């Protein structure tokens, strides 16, 4: 049963990965990546790590892929030109990929890890469940946890700065603003606000 699940999920993961590389339209590539991520979640469950599998489905297949779909829909489908700027790229790319696989395989096979050929350690039923992971994350790995939250905040601010609205004031003068399309109307609203407040205050007084 475990072998059937493993080979099914492995085929899904590999097929999804090849689909990402081979699909011409980025939209189909995103869909293939979703198949790949779900298959990987099944593999994580087989490796008795329930929390990572759930996070994979919720964070990756849920949130990140929605972001991808939005950006692909915004940027437009097939933007890739058919010609190759580097001659022989179509053959060199797979060749180098195969070389990386051979190198990794040699590294795995020549490693003297005896436990590689086993099913892994016998783990207790609670291995990898949210309680254990959360305890480890908030006690022993508290500092990396907080550092990753700062990293997420920085990434969010950076994305707003990068992808904010571009305001072209004149020739060669480009400034980026993080606010949305209402930025031109904001000062007018702000100037109205104090008068409204004072009138309201006068009414109550």
């Amino acid at each position, binding site marked *: 049963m475990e072998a059937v699940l493993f080979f099914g999920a492995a085929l899904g993961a590999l097929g999804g990965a090849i689909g990402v590389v081979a699909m011409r339209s980025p939209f189909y590539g995103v869909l293939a990546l979703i198949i790949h991520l779900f298959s990987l979640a099944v593999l994580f469950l087989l490796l008795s*790590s329930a929390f*990572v599998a759930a*996070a994979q489905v919720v964070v990756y297949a849920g949130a990140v892929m929605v*972001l991808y779909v939005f950006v692909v829909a915004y940027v437009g489908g097939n933007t890739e030109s058919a010609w190759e700027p580097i001659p022989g*790229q179509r053959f060199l*790319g797979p060749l180098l990929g195969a070389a*990386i696989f051979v190198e990794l395989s040699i590294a795995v096979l020549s490693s003297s890890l005896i*436990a590689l050929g086993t099913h892994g350690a016998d783990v207790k039923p609670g291995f*990898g469940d949210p309680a254990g992971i959360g305890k*480890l994350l908030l006690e022993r790995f508290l500092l990396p946890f907080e550092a990753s939250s700062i990293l997420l905040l920085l990434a969010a601010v950076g994305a707003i700065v990068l992808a904010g609205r571009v305001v072209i004031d004149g020739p060669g003068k480009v400034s980026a603003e993080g606010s949305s399309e209402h930025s031109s109307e904001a000062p007018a609203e702000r100037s109205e606000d104090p008068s409204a407040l004072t009138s309201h205050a006068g009414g109550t007084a």
Partner: protein
Amino acid sequence: MNIEWYIVLSSLLFAVGAMGILLRRSPVVILLCLELMLNAGNLALVAFSKMVGNQQGQIFAIVVMVVAACEVVVGLGLIVAIFRRKLPLDVDELRELRG
């Protein structure tokens, strides 16, 4: 299943992702292939965590997931910025930083 199978599958997925980065020219697809490589690394981490019987590898996998989310957000922001400035979305056309 033996742990070996998972590690071999992980290296195969990593190689497919690297091949995609070498082959494709659209920045969106290159980001997707980067995701493939990061996920292959995650699979290896979780497999090794099961092999040792220690949950710390899974913590590492979760941190990798966080870093991947940050990378996606910044990368997609860059793509949107490139698109808004009417520049071509092709990594061979965007060669101003090349020496």
